[in-house]
């Protein structure tokens, strides 16, 4: 039995520039941080049970991985030639499809874990690449690469997506005071609306060629956001989030809706410096940067707005920034250490 985990993430600026339709023309950039909410993948190779078993929100037991409905697990097993005697299960700290990058965290943890069961340890870079190949090339999701890298590396990073397909990861070295200070001004709320990122991103991807100049501006603004973050200019960071959100809303029609607009405006109307919807948009989580003394007012205003739209699933998600990326938590395979030495 082997257990792997990978963190979810909050992305601040530059979303959309990690789509190949953009970065093929001009380098994309994203600034994001891993958070203390994880996706766990447990993998077992039972020697006497030939079936292939996948346990997530559904449970599947089949004779061959090609028969699995879960596309990521199916394609990963086929890719690695693991055709029998395997059980894969997954667990998460918060809702999936909430804009926290959980599906890519899952892909990263899955690839790291499956390689480990084959006796091969892959590092963070290899795990990110393997997850990108799984999600983009094999499953053919219309998504970018930022989430796989954020999950694999952990920490606060500027990610750069180069036209040749390579990805640069530059960690921001915040000390503990800076880190705790920045995170104590962040508020994250799950709207109660889940969505498939693919549905929003497909339209955005198709529109990318019309929005090159806009996206280039977003990619360039990552440096300014980084500088404000390092300097502790939280109000300036908030303003940039707000401007970025206004731009993002123009990138695809499904990015926002009335309920999201109401919640966002409630936060802004109660003292937030700025905010955005996390992930592709259309639902998921809304984040604010706000002075601490406004937090209780924003919480109440958001709860009222959610009630108005009958969103029962609405809740606050407290987050901390973490340094850990994808990692094997437990490895009880007997052959493991022998193969390492």
């Amino acid at each position: 039995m082997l257990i792997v985990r990978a963190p979810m993430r909050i992305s601040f600026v530059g979303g959309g520039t990690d789509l190949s339709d953009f970065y093929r023309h001009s380098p994309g950039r994203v600034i994001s941080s891993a958070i203390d909410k994880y996706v766990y993948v447990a993998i077992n190779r039972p020697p006497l049970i030939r079936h292939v078993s996948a346990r997530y929100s559904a449970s599947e037991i089949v004779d061959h991985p090609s028969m699995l409905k879960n596309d990521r697990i199916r394609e990963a097993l086929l890719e690695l030639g693991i055709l029998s005697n395997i059980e894969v299960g997954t667990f998460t700290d918060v809702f999936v499809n909430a804009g926290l990058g959980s599906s890519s965290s899952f892909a990263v943890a899955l690839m790291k874990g499956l390689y480990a069961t084959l006796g091969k340890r892959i590092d963070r870079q290899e795990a990110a690449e393997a997850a990108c190949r799984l999600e983009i090339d094999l499953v053919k999701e219309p998504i970018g690469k930022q989430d796989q890298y954020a999950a694999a590396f952990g920490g606060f990073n500027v990610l750069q997506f180069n036209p040749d397909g390579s990805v640069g990861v530059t960690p921001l070295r915040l000390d503990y005071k800076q880190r705790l200070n920045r995170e104590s001004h962040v508020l994250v709320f799950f709207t109660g609306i889940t969505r498939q990122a693919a549905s929003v991103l497909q339209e955005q991807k198709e529109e990318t060629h019309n929005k090159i100049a806009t996206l280039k501006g977003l990619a360039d603004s990552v440096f300014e956001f980084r500088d404000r973050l390092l300097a502790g200019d939280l109000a300036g960071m908030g303003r940039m989030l707000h401007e970025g959100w206004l731009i993002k809303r123009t990138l695809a029609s499904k990015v926002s809706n009335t309920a999201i607009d109401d919640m966002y405006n409630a936060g802004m109307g109660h003292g937030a410096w700025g905010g955005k919807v996390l992930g592709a948009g259309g639902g998921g989580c809304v984040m604010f940067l706000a002075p601490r003394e406004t937090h209780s007012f924003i919480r109440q205003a958001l709860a009222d707005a959610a009630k108005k739209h009958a969103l029962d699933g609405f809740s606050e998600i407290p987050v901390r920034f973490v340094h850990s990326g994808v990692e094997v938590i437990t490895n009880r395979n007997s052959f493991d250490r022998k193969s390492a030495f």
Partner: protein
Amino acid sequence: MDEYIRHFSTSVAAALQALPAKEIAKALDILQATYERDGRIYVFGNGGSLALATHWVSDFNKTVFSHHLDNHARRFQAIRLPTTEEELTAWANDVGFDMVFAGPLRNYIQDSDTVIAISSSGNSPNVVKAVELAKSCKVPVIGISGFDGGRLNAIADAKIVIPTEKGQYELVESVHGVILHLMARYFKDYFDYMTEQT
């Protein structure tokens, strides 16, 4: 005599002025991530470096939490290798001196762990052997070296090297002591601050 003393202190002060801050920051982030995943930290070296390793373990396992020993559900798990003199001499006598660190490390090492290797030359065969084992397990390595950094600095993830002429052991080990204390102090301040905030 004055001049001799001043000469030594000047060279130590110059090395301190040029501390590799970026690599130390990277090492602190590696330790933070290890703490988050409840991994263990193995630390080792030869001679004076082994003394530094042992000293650091006591700082990290106890002193960083000393004001709030009961306030943290989880503490650091730093382990000096080998853990006993008996183990050290057994490996050295029965298997070979190059195995005194790699031998015990293989008994313990798991994916969630971290290694700190201390070697002034960066080329001690027993240190390099253990670091290569850690690298093959994809476990992060903080390399603390001097002179030209040697093989240790080449393969470590956090490359903390105090560049000096070959043979400047006293200078290098003195600065290593400062860096190890900096790491301990960072986490002590961090846990103090966290406790004050809550």
